């Protein structure tokens, strides 16, 4: 009798719990009334968010069917993981920023809404102005699944004060003399590190884990993480072995780069140079130190450029997908694209002139914009991306770990990386 009652109690509790979870699942998905849109972004930078909010505010004035547009900054390091967790938990945003390394997964998954029709039909949009090269990563079977919101080339930020104090030629002087090569860049970084007691050159966001940032280095040797078709591992190619041998020597013998487990932030004045994207220029503080932005040094294969890309897509399952796509068309129309250009280099050909970019990039000189941004976007190689990138990335990271020891056998380690990832690439 008692057991029976207890059992009934449990059943009631279970039913209650089920009712609760059922309520929780679809609580936000209210189709009626004005839409509330949410877009996940990687940046919590005040200036970035202020501009986003201004554009959203303007859009809302003419669109009473949209009650709210919220920009939700997620931490950069765990951005994609957090986004997919939100999607798994039934709390997907309406619009999402997507990095190039997860582009193939998102584009092919069917999670995003095709945008061609909305963008092409939007008034005054000038779709044909968008550089076709920037769209490639975001297309699948002829459809566009995300707008290439930011095509940001990598450049070298230089602390000219630190270099001059160490008695080194600045990169600008080396460029003028036609000597801006990796050999000279590493020698300058090493000499400055010795004199200043600070770090030489930092490849930002690499930290001996984020290996895809090393493509800013090895592309100069003509190396690739994998072949164009994504089927063959490129880590043990002769070009990659040469590039990684140079990097290994620069780190452990020459000490031009700070070793593993050492943190140095260029923007806090901890290092002489750093390789990063132009969008990080917002981290430079007025009056901190003298600085310059120059293109990547030439490698054995000559001059080259590497770009990072990020797209913005609309989640297909969003109850307000139509409004979200419409807002995206507004956010990226020629007028707003020009405004956003100060932080996120646009894919619009008409706006990729030093003159246009200079209006919104007061920190950068026209020649910096021309050499780093415009030349970079038109000739740049996009950072490595592949379907199933997270798993591949983890295998490469684990495989490269033995390389970050002073006495590593570079060729053997790189052969090991290929042994690990070839089965995944062949899938």
């Amino acid at each position, binding site marked *: 009798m008692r057991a029976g009652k207890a059992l009934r*109690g449990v059943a009631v509790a279970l039913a209650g719990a*089920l009712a609760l979870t059922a309520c929780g699942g679809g609580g936000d998905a209210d189709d009626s009334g004005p839409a509330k849109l949410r877009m996940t972004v990687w940046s919590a930078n005040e200036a970035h968010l202020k501009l986003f909010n201004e554009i959203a505010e303007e859009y809302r004035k003419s669109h009473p069917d949209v009650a709210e547009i919220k920009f939700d900054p997620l931490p950069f390091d765990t951005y994609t993981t957090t986004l997919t967790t939100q999607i798994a938990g039934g709390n997907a945003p309406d619009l999402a920023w997507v990095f190039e390394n997860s582009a193939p997964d998102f584009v092919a998954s069917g999670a995003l809404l095709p945008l061609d029709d909305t963008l092409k039909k939007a008034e005054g949009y000038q779709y044909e102005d968008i550089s076709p090269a920037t769209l490639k990563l975001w297309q699948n079977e002829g459809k566009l699944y995300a707008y290439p919101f930011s095509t940001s080339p990598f450049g070298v930020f230089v602390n000219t004060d630190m270099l001059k104090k160490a008695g080194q030629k600045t990169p600008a002087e080396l460029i003028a003399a036609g000597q801006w090569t990796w050999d000279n860049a590493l020698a300058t970084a090493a000499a400055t590190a010795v004199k200043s007691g600070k770090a030489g050159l930092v490849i930002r966001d690499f930290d001996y884990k984020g290996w895809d940032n090393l493509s800013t280095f090895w592309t100069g040797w003509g190396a690739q993480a994998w072949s164009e078709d994504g089927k063959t591992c490129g880590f043990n190619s002769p070009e990659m072995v040469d590039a990684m041998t140079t990097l290994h020597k620069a780190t452990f013998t020459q000490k031009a780069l700070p070793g593993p487990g050492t943190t140095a932030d260029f923007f806090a004045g901890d290092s002489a140079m750093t390789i990063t994207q132009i969008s990080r220029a917002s981290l430079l503080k007025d009056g901190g130190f003298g600085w310059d932005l120059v293109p990547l040094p030439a490698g054995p294969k000559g001059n080259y450029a590497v770009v990072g890309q990020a797209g913005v897509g609309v989640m297909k399952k969003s109850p307000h997908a139509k409004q979200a796509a419409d807002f995206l068309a507004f956010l990226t129309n020629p007028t707003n694209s020009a405004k956003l250009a100060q932080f996120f280099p646009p894919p619009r050909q008409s706006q990729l002139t030093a003159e246009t970019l200079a209006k919104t990039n007061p920190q950068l000189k026209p020649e910096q914009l021309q050499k780093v941004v415009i030349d970079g976007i038109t000739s740049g190689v996009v950072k490595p991306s592949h379907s199933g990138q997270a798993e591949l990335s983890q295998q490469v990271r684990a495989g490269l770990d033995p390389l970050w020891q002073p006495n590593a056998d570079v060729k053997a380690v790189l052969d090991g990386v290929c042994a690990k990832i070839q089965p995944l690439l062949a899938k």
Partner: protein
Amino acid sequence: MTQTDTRVGSAAAGPAPGPARPFWTSRRRDQLAGYAFIAPQLLGSVVFVILPLILVLWYSLHEWNVLAGTFEFVGTDNYRALADDPNLGAVLRATGLFSIGLVVVNLGLALLLAVLLNQRLRGTILFRTLFFSPVVVSLVAWTIVWGFLLQDNGGINGLLDTVGVHGPNWLRGEGTAMVSVIVVQVFKNVGLNMVLFLAALQGVPAELYEAAEVDGASRMRQFWRITVPLISPTILLTSIITVVGSLQVFAQIAVLTQGGPGTSTTVLVYYLYQQAFQFHHFGYGATLSILLFVIVLALTVLQWQMRKRWVFHES
């Protein structure tokens, strides 16, 4: 007529005690109050423990791609993949190493500290507080600070440099990374076990030691023959808590090593996280959590069974 009689008779016999007893007897009220008191806890357990447990089992039988929004029944495919997983050996080895290292060092150090701090000496309260304080510090904050200390140019190597020793790159060496993670975790939680041991030590009757001393037993002999048997229930409790806790380690690995270098610190929970949340293999992640559940359950049952052999006071 007969029928009527019967009806009357049954009506008279049936509800005889009825009208006198209201539905809400004091016993029923007590029962209701009892259920009301345990309801929040019961509801919490059902929603946050039992239901997820059942769901995890359900998910482990599916291939769930969150991006594509597909959820397909695949039967035992994930369990077969588990048996064939080339990384699983390394992951279980790392998990075992971490658990054994943590349990041995944590319990050994906790007992040593408890014995030392059980003496009537000046300053013991200060030391007890010092060793216990990390227990109440936020785990992630604690780990981040240790992350800075363990860097190549961090505080620990700085200290070693002052005595002329060049320390290793703690979090980057295959061997030292695991040792570092274990030590960070030991210092975080040793205080809790220390306090439990201390309470147990103070419960050991002093006259037993006096009698042993009269019999000429050495301090060491007293420790092994009196102290250890009498505090063995606490040793059992702390070892279960520590073993189970060690299998759940995640934040320290995520903050300090991200499973590296190589896969040397990729313990089961971290691997599960990678599979589910980074590689989007939620079904396989659920299968790994079933494996973890089975391991924890087996170890707990084993320890519980073993108590009969070595725990004093148990029949």
